[in-house]
Structures are given as structure tokens and as C-alpha cells.
């Protein structure tokens, strides 16, 4: 099932996808544009941990001129205020010269995971969604890189539209990814090209930190990131998960 979390009439509703529309908990069937979409995540008691990978596709590592691929995951964390919903707006600072999208498979943890072996990793996944981990390269510095000034900006990490149940995605390592800007395809890839795959990442992280339900792993982006300007409509899409729409403002 595909789950959404939306606002309508000043209240938050949980919904599921039905015939291309949203079936709210109160049984109303409404269109995609009738609601305000929130990140499709049930609230957690404590701030969720959001882990994000850099350089997790070999082509993208080359693209950013890092030469060879990393031997260990390059990971950073971000806070929840960076998240944004489907069909929302992300601000491009006036002084930015290079702000690019990053279409990423996002894993939502479903069970508390501590020292999980990779063969069991999928048992700990609750679902999947699409993330767009925008980056403003102008602000990059070489201290704890990428820094939070680049990667923890308010609303600069759209997530959604749907939280797709893990059981509906039998092989998350074989999903096509695509980004379009104003309708033109600018990025294409496949999750099979990840350097460190989802089971590896769950084993790797849960070895030194306990992952809790609702925690997120943004698994990196392939080749093809491009600058986007104010007014651009950026759609990051993943096979089986949906198309996440965001407009730069």
C-alpha cells in the first residue's frame, strides 16, 4: 500500500492511494492537488535519525571529481526541519550559483535494528519513499563535509509523495531513478548501481548505532545532477514509488 500524510481543512490526515487519488481516513476521496502534502512519515516520539549517503553511486563520484569510489560509506546526518512535502517549494539563496537536486531512494526503518546481519536487513525496513537531497555547492567547506549549511537547510529535502510498504517492493536494488527539470530528463540511473546497497547499509549502521522505527536512510544519487533555477519544477521519480514534485523559489 502507498501511504500519505496530508493537511486538509486545517487538520492532518493519514491517507492511502486509491485510483490515483487520496483516500483519507475519514473515507473522503480527494485529488492530489486538493491537499497539502507532508513528508509521508508517522510522527515519532523522539527526533528521527536521518542518515544520508554521499558518493554512493560510482558515476556520481566521478562526476564530482572524487576519482575512485569510497571504501566505506560517506555518511552525514540532517535534522527534521530539512524535510518537505510533495508539491512544495524549496528556496534557492540569492547568492547561490550551483544548487542541484539529488534523486534518492529513501529507506524508512520499521523495527528497532541493532547489530543486524545483512541477510536479515530487509526484515527491518518499514517502507520506501523518494527523497530529493538538494545541495547548494557554493557553501561546501572541507570540515565535516558536507556541512549542515549545505545539507540541513529548512525544507530543502523534499520527501514523498508516498511511503510505500516494504512488502510492495520485492527488490529495492533494481529500481529505475529519473529526474526531470521542467519536463526534460536530466538524470537517470538505477539503484542496482549503488556502491553500498540497502542490506549493507543497515548492517553497517546498526553495528555501531541502534536504528529506530521512523529513522531514514537516504541512499545517495547517481550521475546527472544539474543546477536548477528559481521557477524550475523538479520531479524526482523512482520506479514503483512515485514522482516527487518540487519547485525552486
Amino acid at each position: 500500500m502507498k501511504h500519505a500524510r496530508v493537511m486538509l481543512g486545517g487538520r492532518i490526515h493519514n491517507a492511502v492511494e486509491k485510483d490515483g487519488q487520496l483516500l483519507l481516513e475519514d473515507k473522503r476521496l480527494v485529488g492530489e492537488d486538493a491537499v497539502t502534502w507532508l513528508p509521508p512519515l508517522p510522527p515519532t516520539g523522539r527526533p528521527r535519525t536521518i542518515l544520508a549517503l554521499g558518493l554512493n553511486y560510482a558515476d556520481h563520484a566521478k562526476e564530482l571529481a572524487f576519482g575512485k569510489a569510497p571504501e566505506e560509506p560517506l555518511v552525514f546526518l540532517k535534522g527534521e526541519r530539512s524535510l518537505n512535502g510533495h508539491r512544495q517549494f524549496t528556496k534557492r539563496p540569492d547568492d547561490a550559483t550551483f544548487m542541484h537536486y539529488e534523486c534518492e531512494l529513501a529507506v524508512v526503518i520499521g523495527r528497532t535494528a541493532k547489530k543486524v546481519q545483512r541477510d536479515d536487513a530487509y526484515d527491518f525496513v518499514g517502507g520506501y519513499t523518494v527523497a530529493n537531497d538538494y545541495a547548494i555547492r557554493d557553501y561546501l567547506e572541507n570540515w565535516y563535509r558536507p556541512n549542515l549549511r549545505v545539507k540541513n537547510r529548512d525544507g530543502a529535502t523534499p520527501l514523498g509523495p508516498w511511503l510505500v510498504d516494504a512488502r510492495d517492493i520485492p527488490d529495492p536494488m533494481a529500481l529505475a531513478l529519473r529526474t526531470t527539470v521542467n519536463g526534460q530528463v536530466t538524470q537517470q540511473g538505477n539503484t542496482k548501481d549503488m556502491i553500498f546497497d540497502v542490506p549493507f547499509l543497515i548492517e553497517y549502521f546498526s553495528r555501531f548505532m541502534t536504528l529506530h522505527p521512523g529513522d531514514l536512510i537516504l541512499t545517495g544519487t547517481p550521475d546527472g545532477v544539474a543546477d536548477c533555477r528559481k521557477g524550475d519544477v523538479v520531479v524526482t521519480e523512482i520506479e514503483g514509488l512515485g514522482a516527487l514534485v518540487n519547485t525552486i523559489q
Partner: protein
Amino acid sequence: MTDIARGTVYGTLLNFRGELEALGPRMNEAPYQAPPTAPVLYVKPANAWSENGARIVVPAGVDEVEIGASVAMVMKSATEVAGYVLVNDLSLPQPNFYRPPVKYNCLDGFLAIGDRVRARNEAGDPAVFELKVRVNGELKQTVRFSNLVRPADKLLADVGAFMTLGPGDMLMLGCDTPRPRARAGDTIEITMPALGTLSNTLVAEAA
């Protein structure tokens, strides 16, 4: 203040002059190339939270941990500080600042947070905060917050320029160098008169 749910906890690197002095010319060499212009922050996730008095597990195979004694601002809103609290930002020693040290820093329990949050009118001016770190009763470090590169208000303003903090979020003022070390079996006490004592004992991971 105690009614606000705890939000995200952010740490601050290189906010003590001593940290810059310790790095010296290395700040301008590869891979850093130049000193940072923006505050250098990191997230200490919720799995790392430990309370005052909690035992903190040191993973098997780890000899020593570094004590990151500091004070954090607890936010009431994006710009208002509800109060100040002691923290012990533990980490596994590693000398590299290029990439976020997630596997050294985000271990379960590796952020002890004090239970006494005090507003400015009781805690005083953060510019003159001074805390002490003792390991097994022996004084190991005195931290004077007059040595900050960005004092509390300036840090808040510069962080607020690129991200909005919310009620319950915490922003640490930074950790001075060299960080004292401790090992399984040690009891660490961080004290500041207005903020009380943050005490935790390290225990070895069960085999």
C-alpha cells in the same frame, strides 16, 4: 521548560580558540585548504542520548573514549534560549575533521545530557561560564567559555542564517581541546555551579 519535548541536538566544532591553535597551519593544508567560514555543526542523534547518572557502554575493542564537556543552549523558539544545560559529547578518538565522524560520534549513549536546565537569569552570562571535568574524582580539564570563537549569541545568529532551530532543539557551544580521555570503569563528572553535576560511569560492552 521541562514541558518542551527534546528536539534535535547539534554539536559545534572549532568554536574554541584552542582548537584552532592546535590545528595551526594544518587548517590551510589538504584536505581542509582553509579555515571554515560558517559554523561547523554535527547532529548527535537520539540513540546517543544518555541521562545524568546513566551507565554508558564502551563498545568491545575500544580502549579509550574522548570526553566532550560542554554547555548546550536549549531553545524555546528559533531565537530564544530557554536555558543552558551540561552535556558530555563522547566520541571515539580520531584525528580527522574532513568528513562527519558518524561512526565515532553517534554511538548509543554517547551524549549525556544534564537534568538541570537553567535560564540566563540563574545560570549567568555564558561568556563567563566555567566547567570542570573530573575522572574518578581527579580534575582533568577546566573549560572557560570566554575562549569561544563565536560566543553564544553570535553562534545562534550565524547558525540561524542557514537553518531554523525549533523549541526543544539544542545547540552545543563547543568542546575545548585537548579532550580528556576515559575508559570502561571510569566515572566522569562534569560540574558547573549553576548547572549542577552531570555524572556518568563507563562500562564495558557485555561479551
